[in-house]
């Protein structure tokens, strides 16, 4: 196998980031990222489901006939989503109320079925686990970044309502630009999600282009020194 764990992690977090490059799972991504905490909540839930489903799919990959693999995968994913949904309802009822319909909708998140089909069903457990963790974390990071940006521009706070996830101790952990900050409501409304995601993708592409240019420059200077 030529792919190292390092490659898998790089792919998940950056080169094949499910949100910024594959553009998968956009429905929950766009819908819940109106605050950093919502993004974090959904990101963590997706990460859990992704890890559990990737590992299970990888374990059973040799026993499932290819003709029926997709229904089996969906069944596995749906069970884990139900488990995550019930536990969220039990332990984080407030957050569960906010995220609402988008928790069960993780079932239809293309990232998860995509990783199960494209990766976990062809690899052994360890690589599948690493793939799930890195892909899920990449998705989570985008959710939190987009959520934080929209929250900051829209209402001038960061990580407000963190106590919904981490208990009363976290209530004071938030940043605010002041009560008289007049945010751009549009950032919290749906158009803000599309504009924000577009700008994030643009930033990623700029960083990639810069890196490539640098690489090309290094290579050419190396050949130049070698030639001289």
């Amino acid at each position, binding site marked *: 196998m030529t792919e190292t764990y390092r490659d898998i992690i790089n792919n998940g977090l950056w080169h094949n980031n499910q949100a910024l490059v594959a553009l998968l799972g956009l429905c929950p991504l766009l819908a819940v990222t109106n605050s950093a905490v919502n993004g974090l909540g959904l990101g963590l839930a997706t990460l859990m489901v992704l890890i559990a489903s990737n590992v299970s799919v990888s374990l059973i990959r040799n026993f499932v006939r290819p003709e029926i693999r997709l229904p089996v995968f969906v069944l596995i994913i749906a069970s884990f989503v139900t488990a995550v949904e019930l536990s969220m309802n039990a332990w984080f009822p407030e957050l569960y109320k906010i995220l609402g319909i988008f928790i069960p909708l993780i079932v239809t998140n293309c990232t998860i079925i995509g990783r199960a089909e494209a990766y976990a069903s062809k690899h052994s457990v360890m690589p599948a686990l690493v793939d799930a963790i890195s892909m899920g974390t990449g998705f989570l990071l985008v959710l939190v970044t987009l959520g934080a940006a929209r929250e900051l521009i829209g209402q001038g706070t960061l990580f407000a309502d963190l106590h919904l996830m981490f208990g009363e101790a976290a209530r004071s952990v938030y940043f605010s630009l002041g009560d008289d900050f*007049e*945010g*751009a*409501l*549009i*950032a919290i*409304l749906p*158009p803000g999600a599309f*504009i924000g995601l577009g700008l994030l993708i*643009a930033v990623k592409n700029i960083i990639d282009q810069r890196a490539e240019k640098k690489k090309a420059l290094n290579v050419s200077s190396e050949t130049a020194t070698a030639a001289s």
Partner: protein
Amino acid sequence: MKFVTSTSPHTFKPNSVQKVMLEVLLALIPGIIAMTWYFGWGVLINVCIAVIAAVGSEALVMKLRNRPVMPVISDLSAVVTAVLLALAIPPLLPWWLTVIGAVFAIVIVKQLYGGLGYNPFNPAMAAYVLLLVSWPSHMTSWLPPIMLNEHPLDFIQTLTVIFTGALPAGLDWDAISSATPLDEMFTRLDLNQMIEEIRQSQLWGDFGGRGWEWVNNWYLLGGLYLLYRKVISWHIPVAMIGSLLVLSSMGYLADPATHPFPAFHIFSGGVMLGAFFIATDPVSACTTKKGQLIYGASIGALVFVIRNWGGYPDAVAFAVLLMNMAAPTIDYYTQPRVFGETQKADLTETAERDKHD
């Protein structure tokens, strides 16, 4: 002796974009003067702020894109966008909102799509909608027209309000601001009041709101100048005003107690500005003649629908943006037949002909 021969075109207009934009600016002057007359210095100050912000941000983007700055700045399209935005916003809007609007119009709506000629949406209207959706309370506090304004602000006071938000001593926002006639009309219609009852207020002139109807008249004058100079064609404005007129007449004839007189619709809000200066934007509007008729008529219909049943006081910006989205499709289906092409010539027929050959 040597004769220099060159290929066609042998005559050309240098920098036609700049010429067109100059004509548009010229045609806007009566409207700007009327707005300033009725609503105070704030209009002119907003125009200045918006122009500086728009031109500045366009220069910045051109620098970032490593493109020559001067040719783009001097085509005046950013100035036109800025002026149109400044005429749509309330005269005492805080300066930073005007700046955000102008920068959004140029950077996000125009330059990120590739600059002049590539933007699918009208930059001024997209920026107006951004401001309206994001800061509704600022964007709906208009001033009453001069003849109803009990506390007209002088130039320095206006400047202070726009840049610091501090009102002159003894005044508060409730005392100096007023709803727009459209806002007033539809808020009170929602409360089940009758037109006659609503029109008791001295806010109303002959057709629309006092002051507003004259502003619209001056925009109409500017628009006729653009038609005369052949900067715009008649299709979009006529279709837009016509469809609004037809629909509002139908409403009025059906139930005059709850539908304002048709002329009210046409001489209120941004209809004239929209019909002649905004919907006719050559970049984001339809280009085929038939398409322009459909496009304009749909904008007029949407204005009527949104005004009557929508949540926002004026509808021109939303209607224009919605039809901007539809414009490429309309153009696709209204492409004129190429000369020599027969009506029924389709692929199967040509294929058969090829077979016989």
